[in-house]
Every structure is written in structure tokens, then in C-alpha cells.
């Protein structure tokens, strides 16, 4: 469904991504793993169209999207779910959700999807008139996921849904993500630092390091892979190099 071929990009003259190749198949969950400053967010920005792609191509549903504007990519059905801190804190929960549906014109279906999101996350319905800046970390994460679903996407990209959340809350969020995949048949790319959780959820994983895909493979194999474990499950990158 999403295919990335040799993508290079960066900021100003600084190249961050040095040729990324990735594939996300329909109706699956793929995890993109990596520590801070490895290029995860840069890749998301490139896919979403916020950062221009220097070279290489990105295909969504067989169509090239790397030269399109961000709002056109959303309309094509590829939606990035921001981190929780990127809700609009000055707007109410419901306004945030309706913003997610901005690109759609089918009012009745939007209403239905709003009810669907409220069914997934009942706490959002309870607090729909409150400013989203007043929500707890977990609730804000539910809000941004719900906001992404409001666009009626074919595929969502989740940007670190576990960031700054307590372990129990993370577990709950990941359960919901799995439910969304099952019940809505959603294709999901999940970008994470929480490697174990992401690999338990995903079927396939990529590890990005220094702007390149470092390791890739089936999720269950990767969980037991020493290289992955040392790099991201407690060890440092230097230790991982030693293992190799």
C-alpha cells in the first residue's frame, strides 16, 4: 500500500535520510523503530509532504505522492497521527476531532465516524466540550488517534503513541490500536521508541539508524534478535555494534 524507494531528504544542506527503502502492506501493522535523532520523524514528515523529498520516490496505492502537497496526501487517504502534544490545546475535544474530518464533505458520514470514534474512546465523548489542553496524556493520545480516524483514511501513520505515557496507559493505547486494525481493517505504520510494545503489535519491523534502514524483518524474529535487543532494549548503540 505504501512503498518508499531510496528516499533522501533533510533540512537546509543537512542530509538526514540517506536512502530509505520500506514497504507497508495493506491491512497490516508495520513498526518503524529507532532512537532519538535517527530520522524517524524526518521520514514521517517526508511521507506526509511537509518536508520536500530530495530524491527517491514514495508510492501510495500505486500513485506517486512525493511531489504532492500535504493536504493532497491527506485527501488521498494517507493520514499522519501527530504526537499527543500536537493536539490543538486551545480548541475543544470535538473541534479537534472535526478538524480531522476537514478534508471531507460528506456530512452524514462524518457524523457517523464521530460516533464511531466516541465508541472507541468513550472518555472523549464525556469531555467533548472541554479544551483538549485539559486532557491527560493518555486521553490526548486517544484524541489524536481519533482525529486521524476522522479523516476516513486508508492508512494511518502513528508518531510515537507511547511517548511520555505511563506503562499501563501505553498498554491500553496499544490495545486500542490493535482493535482499530481489526475492526476497521486499517493499515498502520507505527513509529516508536518503545521497541518491545511496537514489535508485539506489528507483523514486520524496520530499524532506522543514522538515516538508513539498519535492520528489517518479521516482528517475532526481531524481538529475539540480539542486535535489536542491545540497541533498543536497554543497551546502547555502541554495545550493539560490539555484538555484531
Amino acid at each position, binding site marked *: 500500500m505504501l512503498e518508499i524507494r531510496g528516499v533522501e531528504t533533510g533540512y537546509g544542506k543537512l542530509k538526514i535520510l540517506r536512502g530509505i527503502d520500506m514497504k507497508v502492506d495493506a491491512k497490516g501493522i508495520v513498526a518503524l523503530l529507532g532512537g532519538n535523532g535517527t530520522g524517524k520523524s524526518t521520514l514521517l514528515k517526508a511521507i506526509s509532504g*511537509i518536508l520536500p523529498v530530495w530524491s527517491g520516490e514514495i508510492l501510495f496505492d500505486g500513485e506517486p505522492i512525493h511531489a504532492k*502537497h500535504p493536504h493532497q496526501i491527506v485527501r488521498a487517504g494517507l493520514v499522519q497521527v501527530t504526537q499527543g502534544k500536537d493536539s490543538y490545546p*486551545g480548541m475543544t475535544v470535538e473541534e479537534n476531532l472535526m478538524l*480531522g474530518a476537514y*478534508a471531507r464533505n460528506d456530512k452524514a458520514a462524518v457524523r457517523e465516524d464521530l460516533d464511531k470514534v466516541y465508541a472507541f474512546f468513550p472518555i472523549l465523548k464525556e469531555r467533548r466540550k472541554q479544551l483538549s489542553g485539559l486532557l491527560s496524556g493518555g486521553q490526548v493520545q486517544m484524541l489524536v488517534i481519533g482525529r486521524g480516524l476522522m*479523516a476516513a483514511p486508508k492508512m494511518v501513520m502513528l508518531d510515537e503513541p507511547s511517548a511520555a505515557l505511563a506503562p499501563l496507559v501505553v498498554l491500553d493505547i496499544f490495545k486500542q490500536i490493535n482493535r482499530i486494525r481489526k475492526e476497521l481493517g486499517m493499515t498502520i505504520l507505527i513509529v516508536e521508541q518503545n521497541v518491545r510494545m511496537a514489535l508485539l503489535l506489528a507483523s514486520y519491523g524496520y530499524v532506522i539508524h543514522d538515516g538508513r534502514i539498519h535492520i528489517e524483518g518479521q516482528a517475532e524474529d526481531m524481538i529475539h534478535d540480539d542486535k535489536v535487543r542491545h540497541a533498543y532494549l536497554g543497551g546502547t548503540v555502541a554495545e550493539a555494534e560490539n555484538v555484531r
Partner: protein
Amino acid sequence: MLMDFIVVGLSIGLVYGLVALGISLIFSGLDIVHFAHGEFFMFGAFFGLVLYGDFGISYPITLFLAMIITGIMGVVIERVFYRRLTSQGGGYTVAGMGMIICGFGMAIILQNVAFLIWGAEGHAMGVQFGMPIAVGDITLPRSYLWILIVSVGLMAALHVLLKHTKTGLAIRAVAADKDIAYLMGINVPLMISLIFGLACGLAAVGGVLIGPINYVQVEMGYLMLIKAFAAAVVGGFGSLPGAILGGLLVGVFETLCAAYISGSHKDIYAFLLLIFVLMVRPTGLMGHLAKVKA
């Protein structure tokens, strides 16, 4: 007498409020301080003069057309001249500082364009509104009544647009964070044009409303700009309700001081008020609201 002055002050204040609203809209939407905004007020007044005086179009339609034409003029100027700078970043970045100089330059250019077309002399708009209206003890010239009705109407319309429509939601989203707005599927460049055009249109309405009271002339924009700035800062920069409140306060304070202290120093009072408010509340009266944008 006092009530008359207050009503006059409120009317003038509403016009300050209209221009200040535009300045605040642009500040929150584009992250820039627009120093050529007074010139859009001036151009609006001249468009009004041409439409009403030369083409003989009725006053309400003149108001509407001047708003649209000036709005389009604003969109074109923003797209052609400002967008290159603002796309490099606004606020406290180098490009944001460049925008301040660019705004001043645009103000001078627009003034000179107006000078070439209409000359330096003042033009009377010559709108015949009919007899003043007496409400209780107050006799109110109809031109002021127009200001009251049109400005309050426009402000209410702006409120409805921003708070109760999808486009308004998108404008607020763009003002609060452009990257996230993009991810919502909002056409951000288009929204920025809309915000800028809207702000220029509001200023133009202010110009056509002031036209029948004062002379229409090339330098009217400069004084309006600094008064509207005073209004925006008094109310809390970037806050839309603050811009209106600031405009009203500046208008009433100025009119009362001119009436009871000295009319020949009329233009000083706005800044006395500004200095006083900033001493007591450095963020402006509603500045705390502006911190969380949208």
C-alpha cells in the same frame, strides 16, 4: 454632552477596532506584524471615494465592493511580495524581522501609488445621510450610526465565521500551528491568503466608514496604523476580542480627553493610554488569552 462624546468615541473606537482586528488576525495567522495595514485602510477609503463619488454606487454596496476589492488587492500583495519572506518563517526569525522592514517599505510604496493616482489633497466623500437622529438626549449624526451598525455587524459575522464554521475552524487551526493544520488536510497557503484578504477587507470597511466624517487623503493610513496598533497592544496583541476592546478604549479615551482637556493634542491620548496600560498590564488587557492561540 458626555453621552454624545462617548457615543462618538465608541464609533471611532469601532473603526480602530476593525483595523486592529486585521492587524491581530495577520499576527496570529501569519506570525508577522504588518506595518502596511494602515495603507489598506487608506486604499479602502479611496476605493469608496471612486465607487461612491465617480460611479454613483449606493453607500452600502460601496462598502461591500471596497471591502472585496481591497481584500483581493491584499491577497495579491501578500502572494507576490510577502509570501517569499513569510515562508522562511515569521515571528522572531530573521525573516520575521525582515517582514517588519518589508511592511514599512510596502506602506511607503502604497502611499506613493495613491499619491500618483489621487494627489496629496484631501477629498470629501460627500455622502448625504440625512438629518441626525435624536435618541433621548443624544443627537447622533447618521454617519456614526452607520459606523456602529456596520462594524458591530462585521465583528459579529467574523465571530460566527471563526467559531461556528468549518472554514473558521481551519483558520484557527492555521493560526495555532501550520504544520498540524497541513496534516489535517487543510490547504494552508490558501487559508493564509484568506486570512490576509479578510484583514485587508476589514481595514477597507473602516476607511469607507471614516470617509464621510474626515477627508479622504493619502496620509490617513499612517495615523490610523499607529492608533490601531495602540488599540491592538492595549487589548493584548494577537487577541481578537482584545483588538475590539482596545479599539473602543482608545476611541472613547481619546474623544473624551479631546473634549475636556485639549482638542489640539488629540493624537497624544491614545499613546498615554497605551503607556498606562502597559505599565499596569504588560501583556495588554486580554493578553493572557492570546498566549494559547486559536
